[in-house]
């Protein structure tokens, strides 16, 4: 629908500016959302998308600027006012109470607090009607803890609809969904718009933006860097607007397949309270080859990564390194076997935030002759090593003495990569190596992994980003419910086939 055709726009943001200390997260941003329109807010991590939406919903107060909803000014910093004005928000990290039922989560705050009885039957009736109208099937009496991620998102959307939201904001709604669930979500969005709602969704995935929006707003470093009608633009143009320059895909050179370096034969891991155990896994990693692991988060990736890193030992089956079966497996054994590790969560596992860069880079190898003598750390060698990584990997960092906490995500990741790749490891575990990084840093990480592959290393790349997997991997395996599919060569499977396998269906 055309923005001009319906007089007051659903939303009007005027000159919104928000600063956090010296950082300007939003810089004089203005735009309008027409009634019945779907806007995609596109931008890299840290571009200011979420901040903007949090201002809109009243979680933050803008330093300057104002928001109007259907022509009426919205008081700042008050989620209650935003809800009353008809703005609903589906947060990236769901705001649901796990140990409460769906109905209680939705009814929370919708009835006068001092009423003597919560009217659950009225709530149930309304939820049922909305679920029917919008194709959002949920079990009203189930505990949220028992629901899948897709179902939880439906509950979040129902929460907004229950309060008669006219404008729906979705923050990275597809980040946690399988491709199938994503399609279902976009169908729901179409239905919402057909019933007169207006939608803003935040994303950094170009294909989704192209698929589901009427108009695209691109944010870069806190500023509105472009605005396009979706029908009149393409992915290349949007990517350039998002990053600020042309983006070229990584060049994957042809490399001969090398020797078998690491193998898992019939390996299962122990059940844990959190995370899925591996069941009877077969996996062979060859030199000069990147093996990509596709899957929805929580399907056993953590156990697989733990297995390579030595954090997890098999309960049955065997781990082979080159042609020797491993008997005692531990993090130290993995290090000694030459397995380099780029952990999933660089803040929690990859680095010790309040220790210096030099301390962090030798954290895995302070026992080496290189960094210690007679039980004393050789700080000169450690600092020299840190400085060499800073130089080689173009890490933006004041000195090797700086606390690693002060580094941005991209720079921290470069340091971790430098530490992992230093002595030419034979096997590299790269677990979500580009998560949360901007496009420039992602390209850098990718080129370094491809270099290691050219040198003859075997790389296991675990990622939730299918495009990344398809761009880099020589072979792809799909992990689902702790089981691993047979590897297939790149190009053998389409995205939708992989998506189906991620959802637990056998390859068609």
């Amino acid at each position, binding site marked *: 629908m055309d923005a001009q055709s319906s007089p007051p726009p659903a939303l009007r943001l005027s000159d919104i500016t928000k600063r956090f200390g010296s950082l300007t997260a939003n810089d004089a941003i203005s735009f309008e959302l027409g009634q019945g329109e779907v806007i995609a807010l596109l931008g890299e991590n840290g571009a200011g998308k979420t901040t903007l939406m949090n201002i809109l919903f009243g979680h933050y107060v803008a330093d300057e600027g104002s928001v109007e909803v259907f022509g009426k000014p919205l008081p700042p910093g008050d*989620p209650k006012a935003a*809800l009353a004005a008809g703005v609903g928000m589906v*947060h990236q990290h769901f705001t649901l*109470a796990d*140990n409460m039922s769906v109905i209680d989560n939705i009814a929370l*705050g919708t*009835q006068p607090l001092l009423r003597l009885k919560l009217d659950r039957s009225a709530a149930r009736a309304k939820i049922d009607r909305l679920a029917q109208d919008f194709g959002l099937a949920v079990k009203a009496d189930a505990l949220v803890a028992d629901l899948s991620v897709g179902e939880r998102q439906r509950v979040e959307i129902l929460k907004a609809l229950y309060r008669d939201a006219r404008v729906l904001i979705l923050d990275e709604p597809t980040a946690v969904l399988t491709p199938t669930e994503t399609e279902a979500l976009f169908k729901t969005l179409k239905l919402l718009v057909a019933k007169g709602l207006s939608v803003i969704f935040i994303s950094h995935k170009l294909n989704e933006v192209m698929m589901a929006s009427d108009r695209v707003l691109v944010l870069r470093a806190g500023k509105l860097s472009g605005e396009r009608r979706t029908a009149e633009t393409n992915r290349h143009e949007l990517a350039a607007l998002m990053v600020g320059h042309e983006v070229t895909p990584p060049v994957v050179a042809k490399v001969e397949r090398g020797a078998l370096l690491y193998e898992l034969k019939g390996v299962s891991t122990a059940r844990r309270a959190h995370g899925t155990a591996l069941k009877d896994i077969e996996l062979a990693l060859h030199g000069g080859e990147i093996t990509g692991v596709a899957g929805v988060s929580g399907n056993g990736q953590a156990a697989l990564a733990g297995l390579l890193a030595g954090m997890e030992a098999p309960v049955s089956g065997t781990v082979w390194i080159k042609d020797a079966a491993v008997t005692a497996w531990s993090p130290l054994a993995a290090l000694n076997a030459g397995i380099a590790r780029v952990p999933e969560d660089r803040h929690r596992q990859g680095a010790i935030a309040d220790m210096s860069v030099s301390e962090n880079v030798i954290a895995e190898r302070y026992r080496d002759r290189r960094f210690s003598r007679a039980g004393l750390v050789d700080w000169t060698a450690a600092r020299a090593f840190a400085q060499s990584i800073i130089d080689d990997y173009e890490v933006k960092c004041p000195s090797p003495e700086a606390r690693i906490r002060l580094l941005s995500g991209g720079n921290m990741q470069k340091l971790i990569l430098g530490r992992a790749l230093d002595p030419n490891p034979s096997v590299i575990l790269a677990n979500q190596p580009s998560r949360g990084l901007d496009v420039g840093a992602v390209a850098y990480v990718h080129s370094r992994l491809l270099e290691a592959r050219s040198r003859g290393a075997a790389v296991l790349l675990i990622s939730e980003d299918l495009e990344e997997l398809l761009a880099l991997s020589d072979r792809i395996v799909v992990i689902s419910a702790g089981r691993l599919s047979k590897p297939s060569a790149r190009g053998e499977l389409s995205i939708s086939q992989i998506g189906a396998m991620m959802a637990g269906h056998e390859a068609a």
Partner: protein
Amino acid sequence: MMDAVEILFTASFWVAAIRIASPLIFATLGELICERAGVLNLGIEGIMTAGAFAGWFTVYMGGDLWTGVLVAALVGMAFGLLHSFLTVPLGLSQHVVGIGVTLLATSLTYYVYRLALPEVTSPPKIEPFQPWPVPGLSKLPVVGEALFTQTPLTYLAFVLVIVVAWGLYRTPLGLAVRAVGENPGAVEAQGISVTAVRMGAVMAGSALMAIGGAFLTMSAFNSFFFNMINGRGWVCIALVVFGSWRPGKALLGAILFAAFDAYQIRLQQLSGGVVPYQVFLMLPYALSILALIVVARRATYPKALMVPYQKGER
């Protein structure tokens, strides 16, 4: 040995058990409300002490018994306000603040006691709540005497179990209290103030703790003396876990503990000094730990318990 078993079948034993349980019921409900809202209130021991003194002193100064209960509740709320102001908007450590409130409330109470009664050597007495047999019900066999020949404050404790259970599970406010202890972000996103709900819950809970303390000076005994709370507050913290944060189960826990306590007193008399009496004193605590292990191993904590919430922080 036969006598030890026979105790369990005497009405006087159960009357004592219910009486001993009453202050625990008040204070456990109070702690339960705080924890359901995500705030661990370790000020409980001190707040009970303050409540015990405030209620008793009001009556001693000529106030009527129910006025004493009300004053105790208000004193409890005041300490609840202090506790929640430090832990909720300021987000300070709930452990440190709680222990601080206990120390402050206890010593402040003793100080005021000494200021008000500098000359006394033995604690002065008041006319406490008297047993009030419920017409009809108290004539029921077995349970009649145990449950329905108590003082009005005990009846209030039982009624409050139902009120709190209803409040938590059947009212919109209770929903907000439970949600704020599970995921404060969800409450904020639904337009309710996390700070208001949490502070309100801590104040209400602290009022109940203080009434629990007042029960001791105004119903179980008739005067105030130092150290009379004697760890009951800490027992209530354990009872909340034992009850898996549910009022009904917490009530059972309180009665169970009280029954152990009543039992050990009677066993002491039976044993005739053969065994040191401290062994019997220890009994209810030892058995509680055992029960806790059996019952509460799989208890699900309120997820946001002890997690401060700061608006706009990610």
